[in-house]
């Protein structure tokens, strides 16, 4: 187990280094002189030279990277040029909002995706199976920004049930907070539910044809017990680990969803920084996202081995 963990960790490290190089390298794609962009209206060569010196733009790219990396490793992700806050502060402020949204979306996805997957596997090739598959196709093919706008039209404009935009902190007023996040959470969860349904369906189909399910049936257990206790429990293992891979899709979705519902979260921070040419924030945020993704996948791998005794070497 320890050997497996060390091996995976050693595999992850070069990936992390490459991610950081990639993100740092993006800066080189910027057209024009970054010092000119930072200086804004200022065109005084002395000021420009100072900016170049301050941000080490006068040094070779690899040297710049080493300085940047040194900062990152000591927790300094740089500073927002627009908001004058440190990137770490900004992330700490925005992350809880997105985590709440993502948590609620996950709940929506689990509540829809797993039952739908189980039903379509148990009632294979019946109306229910086709309906569930149709739902999954719809979920995968619907652009979430369209779904969001349509929900706003229905629930905010026409029915006047939910606010169209804005966000209230959970700690401030939980009712208002849930009202502002209900639609975005559904929009985000809908796509994930579709993916979850497909995974659950195939895992359940596999589990239902396993020997232990036949044994459970032969023992005279009720079908509900066979499905829920014997098959589902075993089928959930790969599904839960696959969920870790969907973290990226959830964050991608949050970018658009937060934009539509004007929720001041992680995704909106990325878009706002992109439009304000606040590249330090973009780099910092993308680096944190990628590192979290890598860490989650590592955890999922470890969890998979932990719950699956046959994989322990």
């Amino acid at each position, binding site marked *: 187990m320890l050997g497996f963990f060390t091996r995976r960790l050693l595999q992850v490290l*070069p*990936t*992390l280094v*490459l*991610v950081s*190089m*990639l*993100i740092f390298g*993006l*800066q080189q*794609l*910027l*057209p024009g002189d970054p010092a000119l962009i930072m200086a804004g209206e200022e065109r005084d060569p002395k000021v420009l030279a100072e900016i170049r010196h301050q941000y080490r733009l006068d040094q070779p790219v690899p040297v710049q990277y080493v300085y940047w990396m040194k900062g990152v490793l000591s927790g300094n992700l740089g500073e927002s040029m627009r908001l004058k806050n440190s990137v770490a502060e900004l992330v700490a402020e925005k992350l809880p909002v997105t985590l709440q949204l993502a948590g609620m979306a996950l709940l929506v996805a689990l509540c829809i995706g797993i039952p739908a997957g189980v039903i379509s596997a148990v009632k294979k090739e019946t109306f229910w199976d086709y309906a569930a598959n149709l739902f999954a*196709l*719809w979920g*995968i*093919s*619907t*652009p979430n*920004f*369209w779904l969001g*706008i*349509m929900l*706003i*039209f229905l629930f905010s*404009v026409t029915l006047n049930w939910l606010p169209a935009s804005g966000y209230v902190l959970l700690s401030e007023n939980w009712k208002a907070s849930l009202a502002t996040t209900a639609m975005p959470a559904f929009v985000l969860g809908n796509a994930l539910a579709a993916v979850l349904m497909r995974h659950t369906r195939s895992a359940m189909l596999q589990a239902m044809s396993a020997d232990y399910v036949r044994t459970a049936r032969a023992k005279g257990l009720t079908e509900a017990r066979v499905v829920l206790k014997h098959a589902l429990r075993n089928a959930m293992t790969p599904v839960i680990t696959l969920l870790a891979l969907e*973290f*990226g*899709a959830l*964050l*991608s*979705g949050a*970018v*658009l969803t937060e*934009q*539509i519902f004007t929720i001041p979260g992680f995704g909106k921070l*990325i*878009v706002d920084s*992109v*439009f304000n040419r606040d*590249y330090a924030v*973009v780099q910092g945020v*993308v680096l944190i*996202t*990628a*590192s979290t*993704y*890598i860490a989650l996948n590592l955890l999922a791998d470890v969890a998979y081995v932990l719950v699956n005794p046959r994989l322990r070497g």
Partner: protein
Amino acid sequence: MTAVSTFPLGGNPGSIREENPWARAWRRLRRRKGAMVALAVVVAMVVFALLAPWVAPYEPTATSWSLVRKPPSWLHWFGTDEVGRDVLSRIIFGTRASLGAGLVSVGIAVSAGVPLGLLAGYAGGWVDTVLSRVVDAMLAIPFLILAITLSAFLGPSLSNAMIAIGVTTTPVFVRLTRGQTLGAKVEDYVEAARAVGNPHWRIALRHVLPNIVPPLLVQASLAIAGAIIAEAALSFLGLGQQPPAPSWGSMLNTAQRFIAQAPWMAVWPGFAIFAAVLSFNLLGDGLRDALDPRHK
């Protein structure tokens, strides 16, 4: 040769010949209603994109102050937008941006990803290690976030959005091709090709590549669906097609501001994206079943 002569009377010796695998796949695909409807939609969209100036009832950028935000009517089937442009015409012209982005960016991803994947899978060793780690690194950044970041750093335009989406899609093709190549490399026919003394490049291109085309084709269809959504998302954010040129994503962006007064402005572009993405997804699913040799 004696086998043919002992064939029962009336039996056609030609019929025992192996059916061409592509003909078989097409025959199987034709049986799948969903995939055929999807194919019809895709063909229709290609036709609309190519013939847009002749099919569209109006100029997509022609404004009219007397026609601001008019609901759907006989003259304007999908209504008009905030400056009096015909929504239907803009959707028809928008097919160009969406389909174009889907095809060009997946084209970029395939032409970069497949050779790299072949190289990694076939050569192995440190080449494989380096390429695989780079792929891991790129896949660690969520798809849309990488696409947004790339197109932001490149500057907002439709062609930069295509490049950004193409680059972001490339690692998927590298990984898939590599995996398939590793599987094909140990097959007997590759062994045979090597035994006859074929050079490596010839084995990779003539013996491995043709045998891994089916899964690549399936992935390409699904990737086009993903690229169409991504282009719409980038245009929605203002990073893709620049106004006044029509694109489904940017139409939705404007529509959101007028959702209370002119909901039709949001319904149709969104539905167009949905139909396009659904079609490529269905086509990909259908191709997967039709090309899978284990299926009957």
